């Protein structure tokens, strides 16, 4: 029993020396690299997880960016379409107005020309009528006054007329 319950000096010495040596060696050879390796790996995993999270956020950002761009593009397209429609409407309206004006002008011109033509025609007609009537009158007079009797009658009539006056 003595041997069991009395710590032997030799075992204390050997245990102290060898434990300290092993502690030193393990610390250098094993615990250092292992604990460092574990820490490195944990950091790496954490880094990778964070990077994945960031990447996901970035993708989300990109997606929302894309969405925004798409919306902008759509809005722009809508705007451009509207502008184009407006412009074409305006152009059509402008063209219509211009054409109307031109038409009116041309109509007015035509009227004027027609009026002028008519006036000229009327004047010519008047002149023609005057010559015709003169010729008629000449011819009538000549016929009336072809013989003496007629002349006499005429004179007489004229005199009676004038007498009446």
């Amino acid at each position, binding site marked *: 029993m003595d041997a069991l319950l009395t710590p032997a000096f030799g075992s204390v010495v050997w245990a102290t020396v060898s434990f300290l040596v092993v*502690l030193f060696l393990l610390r250098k050879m094993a615990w250092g690299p292992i604990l460092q390796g574990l820490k490195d790996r944990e950091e790496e995993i954490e880094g990778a997880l964070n990077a994945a999270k960031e990447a996901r956020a970035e993708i989300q950002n990109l997606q929302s960016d894309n969405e925004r761009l798409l919306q902008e593009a759509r809005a722009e397209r809508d705007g451009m379409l509207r502008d184009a429609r407006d412009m074409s409407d305006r152009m059509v309206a402008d063209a219509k107005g211009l054409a109307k004006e031109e038409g009116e002008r041309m109509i007015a011109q035509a009227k004027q020309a027609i009026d002028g033509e008519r006036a000229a025609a009327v004047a010519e007609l008047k002149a023609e009528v005057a010559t015709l009537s003169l010729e008629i009158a000449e011819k009538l007079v000549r016929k009336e006054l072809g013989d003496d009797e007629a002349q006499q009658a005429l004179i007489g009539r004229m005199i009676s007329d004038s007498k009446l006056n």
Partner: protein
Amino acid sequence: MHALPNRIERSCLKGLSLGIFLLALGSVQASSEHGDEGDFNPSEFIIHHIADAHEIHLMGGVHIPLPVIVYAPESGAFDIFMSSVFHHGAHHGASGLWYTYDHGVLAAHDHDPSGHSHGTDHGHGEEDHADHGHGEGHHAGGVDIVDLSITKSIFGMLLMMGLVLVLFGSAARGYSKRKGQAPKGLQNALEPLILFLRDEVAVPSIGKKKADRYLPFLLTVFFFIFFSNLLGLIPFIGGFNITGTLGITMVLAGLVFIITTFSGNKHYWGHILWPPGVPLPIKFILVPIEIASIFIKPAVLMIRLTANITAGHIIILSFTSLIFILGNQFGQGVGMGTGVFSALFMIFMYLIEFLVAFLQAYVFTLLAALYFGEATQEAHH
């Protein structure tokens, strides 16, 4: 999914049946070995197996001699020789001292202790010698010696330490060789334990910031105890009882004591020497208790570990002794029959001892970590 567990189960069963067979064989063989001697002393048998010795006793009569290193301070004599010399009785060392080895007790004398009976005794033929049953120290013509021999426990400890160095050295290479990759092989097997000790023992007890400083010690202590315990469970190699050797556990506990004492901060010593928030009369009771606890804590660590491991060995050896006791009492047939049942009980005990091997290493490490944490704890938040 089903193939692997089945395979493991099968190999476990195979191992188990082999173990039963070997143990039964061992006990039957042992019963025939001791059966003839007639007078069987179980306590002597058990103590012989768990106590430290200067030789390794394998199966049967096979002994592996170990180096004996002795220093006699009075005469300045220094002797190194193998313990196998004691097969021829007392040994006359090179320094002129005579050495005897009787029932695990090494003694030195300044004259030939078997002087009157000049014959050459063979084996341990010194039953009638005067210093039978005594410890070290003075005997008739005895000389004070300092025994620095590589005893069984020390040999086992060195063996285990070599194993630990090789295991963890090669595991550590994995971290530099496959940097940033998943662990593999040995590295993979040891990593969970290391992580467990770091994340479940050291960090919760000491705190994340300070744990790194104590982690190498805690890891070394844990694996020292764990592997020592496991080595002690391997049958037929002499029954190493490393963590059941008081001298070795004393060193472990002593180191815990030294580290705790030296890393104690103002807060720690303040709580011991002048506990705050306690009425003055109580302080006079509390302070001596607290001071005693500084020494009691590591002492308890030492005793718990030694006692648990030794107890496990004693139980297993008791079952073995049962075979001899009954065999002697009722004949060899009964001894052999008992052997079968004893073997079954021993297997059961072995399984429990596996658990204890881990548990005691864990408890020792956890408590050491708690003491370190207590010593380095900052004032309350």
